[in-house]
């Protein structure tokens, strides 16, 4: 994309830099400060929504790396999210492990499960690979639902709030900071993965796996790595969301949920990290806007509130189709166009 | 019958491939289109048959008329039913279908007008060899047989105009001769016209009535086939014959200059 006036990339470091201009530094710092101030002026309900959204972003970063960058289409992402959520909840409530260890361990656990599923990608690709991730979705959720003695079956289980020293992060406000910092770290890690040689190998595999192999990229290793990283992000996102809610049930991790994750990155734009933010925030805003609209409507038409879930499905499906048809590069691409426009304003070229 | 009037063709709205090409194919004649690779011959054929759209190509200027009607904006399948059949380069049979089914697919546009069997018998009168192969899966036929099959398949639609794209590619000379004889017979007996794109200029000009030479998206030379055969430039560049064989060094200079004059 175009750079602002008088900004030139003269070295490799400059070319690869995430933050390139002073304005961007200022904006980034402002955004982080603003983020840290959010709990000061929002209500608990709104804050819960924001925390959920942030943990979804972390999980969606995973599918972006796996599908958007490495091209391994996964329709079982929410199952990996579930693995993370349940591992962390189990570790904290059953083994009494500290939250701070449990969450990374949950990430690794989900990553390892992902690795197992990824093994099929050595032999399979395209439509046939979808089947193996779909199989993962069904098999993992089968185990979670039917292994009642450990997971509580369809009644779910509790995921206690974290403690650090003597402080318990029981309030939504305090938990917000944990997720916020996790999100910052996750974004930084994801961005670094995709701009280094690992990320470039992923992109090569996505664009043409045979050509990538001929170029000397070890297909098996990188595909497995993509599965591990993608699912580890899913696990961490899932674990954070689980402890935020305090209780987890299997119905938050259905196949439809997995489709939502795919939808986020389609709407945001495949193969961009910023796209994940755009996609998740866009859909979350849509969902909550619709909820508010319907609840205000339900004073006139009783029962309008129950329309929320199905109506959201229709709208979400439609939005996915519209994006694929008219803006296959997603919101991130729109954002680039907007930035270019604003840089050049008032001259159109 | 076919009149191409000063057309321009762009791919992906960027790459200009044909830069003002005009060409006439009269009734009941064979017109040969010669030229080097990448000259735009296949693009011209696709512009006429309408297959450009599937490759993000577009006719941006000029017009194509067939039988007095403009056809440059109608769908490819309608052009086929008007009587334009393209035989694509590279022996594109439907590999997983049998010979019979390939012919049936070719008969698709006329399925309401004529019976499949009578058309198939007509086609077999030109290509007797296909009759014995009709149960075979076409992907396993030899190159010559596949080439015959694709011409036969196009013939099933009883076109008024054949667009043949490099029928000789990769075939033994004796098979090329056989195929060209059949093409000539089709023209005479069916009253069809043929627009023939060829690298094999000798064979093409030997059956053609008229010839065009294309370079870099333009027609650089045209004339009756017999005249083209005698043209020294055509002889040297396309027929591979040289009268200047002895004075080698001088000829190279001259060659370069003449070549350059062509490519402008």
């Amino acid at each position, binding site marked *: 994309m175009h750079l602002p006036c008088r900004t030139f990339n003269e070295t490799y470091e400059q070319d690869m830099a995430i933050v390139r201009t002073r304005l961007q530094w200022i904006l980034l710092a402002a955004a982080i400060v603003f983020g840290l101030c959010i709990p000061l002026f929002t209500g608990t309900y709104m804050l819960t929504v924001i925390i959920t959204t942030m943990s979804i972003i972390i999980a969606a970063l995973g599918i972006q790396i796996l599908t958007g960058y490495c091209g391994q289409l996964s329709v079982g992402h929410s199952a990996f999210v579930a693995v993370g959520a349940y591992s962390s909840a189990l570790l904290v409530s059953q083994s009494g492990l500290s939250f701070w260890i449990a969450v990374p361990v949950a990430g690794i656990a989900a990553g390892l499960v992902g690795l197992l599923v990824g093994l099929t990608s050595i032999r399979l690709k395209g439509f046939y690979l979808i*089947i193996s991730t779909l199989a993962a979705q069904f098999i993992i959720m089968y185990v979670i639902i039917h292994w009642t003695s450990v997971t509580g079956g369809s009644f779910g289980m509790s995921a206690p709030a974290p403690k650090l020293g003597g402080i318990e992060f029981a309030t939504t406000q305090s938990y917000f900071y944990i997720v916020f910092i996790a999100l910052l770290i996750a974004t930084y890690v994801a961005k670094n993965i995709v701009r280094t040689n690992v990320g470039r190998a992923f992109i090569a595999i996505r664009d043409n796996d045979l050509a990538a192999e001929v170029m000397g990229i070890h297909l098996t290793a990188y595909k497995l790595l993509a599965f591990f990283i993608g699912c580890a992000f899913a696990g961490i996102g899932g674990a954070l969301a689980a402890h935020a809610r305090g209780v987890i049930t299997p119905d938050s991790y259905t196949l439809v949920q997995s489709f939502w994750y795919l939808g986020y990155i389609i709407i945001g734009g495949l193969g961009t990290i910023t796209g994940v933010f755009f996609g998740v925030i866009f859909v979350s805003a849509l969902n909550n806007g619709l909820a508010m609209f319907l609840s205000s409507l339900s004073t006139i038409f009783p029962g309008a509130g129950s329309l929320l879930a199905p109506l959201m499905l229709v709208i979400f499906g439609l939005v996915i*189709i519209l994006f694929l048809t008219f803006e296959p590069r997603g919101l991130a691409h729109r954002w680039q166009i907007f930035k270019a426009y604003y840089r050049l304003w008032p001259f159109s070229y | 019958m076919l009149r191409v009037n000063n057309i321009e063709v762009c791919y992906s709205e960027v790459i200009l491939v044909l830069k003002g090409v005009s060409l006439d194919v009269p009734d009941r004649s064979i017109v040969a289109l010669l030229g080097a690779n990448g000259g735009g011959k296949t693009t011209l054929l696709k512009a006429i048959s309408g297959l450009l759209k599937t490759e993000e190509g577009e006719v941006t200027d000029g017009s194509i008329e067939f039988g007095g009607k403009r056809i440059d904006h109608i769908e490819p399948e309608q052009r086929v039913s008007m009587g334009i059949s393209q035989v694509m380069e590279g022996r594109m049979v*439907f590999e997983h279908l049998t010979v019979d089914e390939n012919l049936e697919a070719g008969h*698709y546009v006329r399925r309401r007008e004529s019976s499949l069997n009578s058309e198939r018998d007509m086609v077999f009168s030109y290509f007797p060899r296909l009759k014995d192969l009709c149960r075979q899966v076409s992907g396993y036929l030899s190159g010559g047989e596949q080439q015959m099959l694709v011409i036969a398949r196009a013939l099933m639609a009883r076109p008024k105009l054949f667009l043949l794209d490099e029928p000789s590619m990769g075939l033994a000379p004796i098979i090329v001769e056989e195929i060209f004889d059949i093409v000539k017979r089709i023209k005479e007996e069916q009253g069809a016209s043929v627009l023939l794109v060829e690298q094999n200029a000798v064979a093409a000009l030997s059956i053609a009535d008229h010839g065009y030479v294309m370079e870099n998206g333009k027609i650089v030379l045209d004339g009756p086939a017999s005249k083209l055969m005698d043209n020294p430039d055509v002889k040297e560049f396309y027929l591979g014959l040289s009268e200047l064989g002895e004075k080698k060094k001088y000829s190279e200079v001259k060659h370069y200059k003449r070549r350059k004059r062509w490519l402008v």
Partner: protein
Amino acid sequence: MSVILEHLVIGIAVGAVYSIVALGFVLIYKATGVFNLAQGSLLCLGAYICYFLSITVGLPFYVSIILTLVVAFAIGLLIEFVFLRRMIGQSHLAILMITIGLYLMLRGVVLIAWGVYSKSLPSYLSAEPINILGANVLPIFALSLVAAAILFAVFILFFRYTSIGVAMRATQDNQQVAQSVGISVKRVFGMSWAIASLTAAVGGIIVGTILSVGYSLDDFGFKVLPAVILGGLESVPGALIGGIILGVVEHFGAAYLGSWLIGIEDVIPYVILLVLLLIVPYGIFGLKRIERI
């Protein structure tokens, strides 16, 4: 011995239902190269339309079946025209995601129109089991065997002997060449969606009778995926065999493992499929794609 035979017969009968649903996948994939994840939604929609016509409107059941098929055919054409026509020539994965969008949309539409509670179709068959080869089978399963046999015979003949069938296979082989011989690719695409929607509706009516008509019937599309893949995505006979294998495996799984592992029959097909795919990556009857850079 007779117990095993009985399980086998019931498994085959259930498998016949699966193979009807699998057929819809194959029809669309064969002609258009689209892997339609919304196939189950078409099935669910078909079942609900049948419910609407027979119960809500109150038409005689056989009339409403025929009307359902007509409506399903039209819906298939409509979906192709509205959502997929623009995507011709796009990457397969993009089109696959369109069908995911369709799946979400159709589920929402069904929920809005008919709510979350399941409905039942009129009981047009007796609940008295009948005897096939020594096995007691509900009449609906016998009917589904007949329906599967008819559908598969019709489609195998259709693809072999009719011009439009041959044209559809030609389009699958190479779209551009198909266009060059005058086949309207758009019409072929529309036709295949319409036909697939019709078979889905047949499946929907049968499944709706066996279970009941609920929004979660669309999961049936995913349930039969192992059958589709097992048979190979392009093969009509493969769908039949894949469906029957799936039915038998599932039934035996439920009969012999179900007492220890409740609900295991839902995942057994996937486990077996995964193992099998690692050995035969293109299914039993699938075409091997030759890849070059």
